[in-house]
């Protein structure tokens, strides 16, 4: 059986004048799964999303959404997808209900169906109480939920979300994740961009890491973490004075040990439980007291650092508009040299 592909990007390229915002991005999303585009601000995530949602015409390359070509059949694409943009693009002067009504009518949903549909959507997104208040009075989380509700007016099989939780407090973020999981359970295919590693880790079946307009890695969250190297054992000692002795003991059975004195911590590469029990036994034998002992897999943050040489979340400059993301952020000296070479 061939895999049913809901969204496909095929060597998408976008130039803005001299700037190369997207430099050959390809991926495919099987139906009913979640793909997360992960990358820092200015990596080209939004631009890729805008091309797939027919808002921006690719300089070259192509793509399909629910089988419709983004170049030759943009209307087919628009009929099959919902889009939740970076800034929640609800109409501030309209009430929640009117926002749904506006988009619903534009889709051509019959007038007499819109009322019940709006009630249903508002209820699903816990907005019933605020339904008749103008969206200006909504909190950030409510706006996002309304934005999402509006995107779902025509029950699109594919949903694009551009940094859906940027600027939300942790609680609203978790709530939104629940809503998204619910949608996926219902069969919706999701493509979401994020600069939060945790978000990609929790939601995505597959992650595409994008940096400076290119895909630099792709795989399941677990595969990506494996790429970043082995797991490690992390020990926190009770007594800082014992650090050196403990480090010496560990060196006898593992290849390398990192000492983090300020944290009273030792970090050593380990393959699994065997290594861990061996280390635990050794310490017990020599009466070294341990506050905490654990096996740590590399986080996506480690993955990102490993792949790009810089952290994903180091730049917290708000990305104000779609166009904003086309400007490359200020990378390290070495980074900008690479970029300039790529431009030549």
């Amino acid at each position, binding site marked *: 059986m061939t895999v049913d592909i809901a969204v496909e990007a095929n060597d998408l390229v976008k130039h*803005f004048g001299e700037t190369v915002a997207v430099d050959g991005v390809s991926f495919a999303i*099987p*139906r*009913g799964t*979640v793909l997360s585009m992960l990358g820092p601000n200015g990596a080209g995530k939004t631009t890729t999303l805008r091309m797939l*949602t*027919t*808002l921006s*015409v690719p300089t070259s390359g192509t793509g399909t959404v629910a089988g419709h070509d983004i170049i030759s059949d943009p*209307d087919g694409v*628009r*009929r099959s*997808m919902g*889009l939740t*943009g*970076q*800034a929640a*693009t609800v*109409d*501030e*002067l*309209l009430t929640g209900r*009117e926002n749904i009504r*506006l*988009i*619903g*009518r*534009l*889709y*051509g*949903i*019959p007038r007499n*169906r819109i009322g019940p*549909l709006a009630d*249903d*959507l508002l209820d*699903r997104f816990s907005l019933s109480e605020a339904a008749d208040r*103008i969206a200006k009075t909504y909190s950030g989380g409510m706006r996002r939920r309304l934005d999402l509700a*509006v995107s*779902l*007016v*025509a*029950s699109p099989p594919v949903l694009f979300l551009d940094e859906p939780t940027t600027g939300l407090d942790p609680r609203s973020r978790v709530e939104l994740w629940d809503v998204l*999981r619910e949608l*996926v*359970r*219902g*069969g*919706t295919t999701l493509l979401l961009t994020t600069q939060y590693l945790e978000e990609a*880790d*929790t*939601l*995505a*079946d597959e992650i595409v890491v994008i940096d400076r307009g290119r895909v630099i890695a792709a795989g399941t*969250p*677990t595969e990506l973490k494996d790429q970043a190297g082995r797991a490690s054992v992390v020990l926190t000692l009770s007594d800082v004075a014992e650090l050196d002795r403990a480090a010496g003991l560990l060196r006898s059975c593992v290849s390398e040990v990192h000492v983090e004195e300020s944290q009273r911590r030792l970090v050593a590469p380990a393959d699994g439980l065997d290594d861990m029990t061996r280390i635990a036994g050794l310490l017990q034998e020599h009466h070294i007291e341990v506050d905490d002992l654990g096996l740590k897999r590399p986080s996506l943050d480690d993955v990102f650092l490993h792949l790009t040489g810089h952290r994903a979340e180091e730049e917290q400059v708000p990305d104000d*508009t*779609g*166009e904003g993301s*086309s400007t490359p952020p200020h990378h390290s000296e070495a980074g900008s040299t690479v970029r300039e070479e790529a431009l030549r």
Partner: protein
Amino acid sequence: MTAAVQPGPQSRPRPSALTGFELERRGLFQQSLTVVWRNLLHIRRMPEMLMDVTIQPVMFVLLFAYVFGGSIAVPGTNYREFLLPGIMVQTIVFSSFVVAVGLTADLEKGIVDRMRSLPIARSSVLVGRSISSLMHSSIGIVVMAVTGLLIGWRIRDGVLDAALAFLLLLVFGFSMIWLGILVGSMMRSVEAVQGFMFTVMFPLTFVANTFAPTQSMPAWLRTIAEWNPVSSLTQACRSLWGNGDPAPASAAFPLHHPEISVVVWAAIFTGVFAPLAVRAFRRRARD
């Protein structure tokens, strides 16, 4: 990772809005009307948006009629009667301003993108914006007419002539809307639009016969003023409403045939600005 992120069973029914009924086939006009509905809701929610066609022009009328009016001599009528058509023309010319501000705000806020991501005629955003802006400016015309009637302005010729004058105002307003779309698509912020439009609109509406007769201007300025399309429209309204004498023999050609001139100017503006505006909007919306 939790089990929840695994792809769910496809068989489970999605709470679908579309099951059980067909989407209506709606054309450009109906989609535009939905956009108009939305734009009018904006006015209802923020009535101060109407200040530019209500309080502001009323203030202008009062200022000009009572402060400057006494020192401006006009041929064949009193100053208030002379002034009213001028103010109405200014109001309708400013409809381009209304369009530009509204369009830029929608572009800035991502509303246009949202609409462009829908399976609708892409021009419905523009058509809807134009219709609601014309309605917006028409409110101004009504307010001006009422204010005028209160301070002594009268329609002194026939009903048909009077209606023709209002029609010419609308036709000219329509051509000005394209200028608004052009400016709105090119500018990056509402503030930029306001800055640009004030700089263009004030000379355009003042270097004309709107507020003072052109005869007393320096010769070079008078030529500019009399060829100004705004003067043709003002002259057309004055002559159709019977507010003052026809243009003197020394006036430039357009003022002797004001009605035809208005139609020609409107056609030229639409012909020039409409393609430019659509191109600028497309370009703005493409990237």
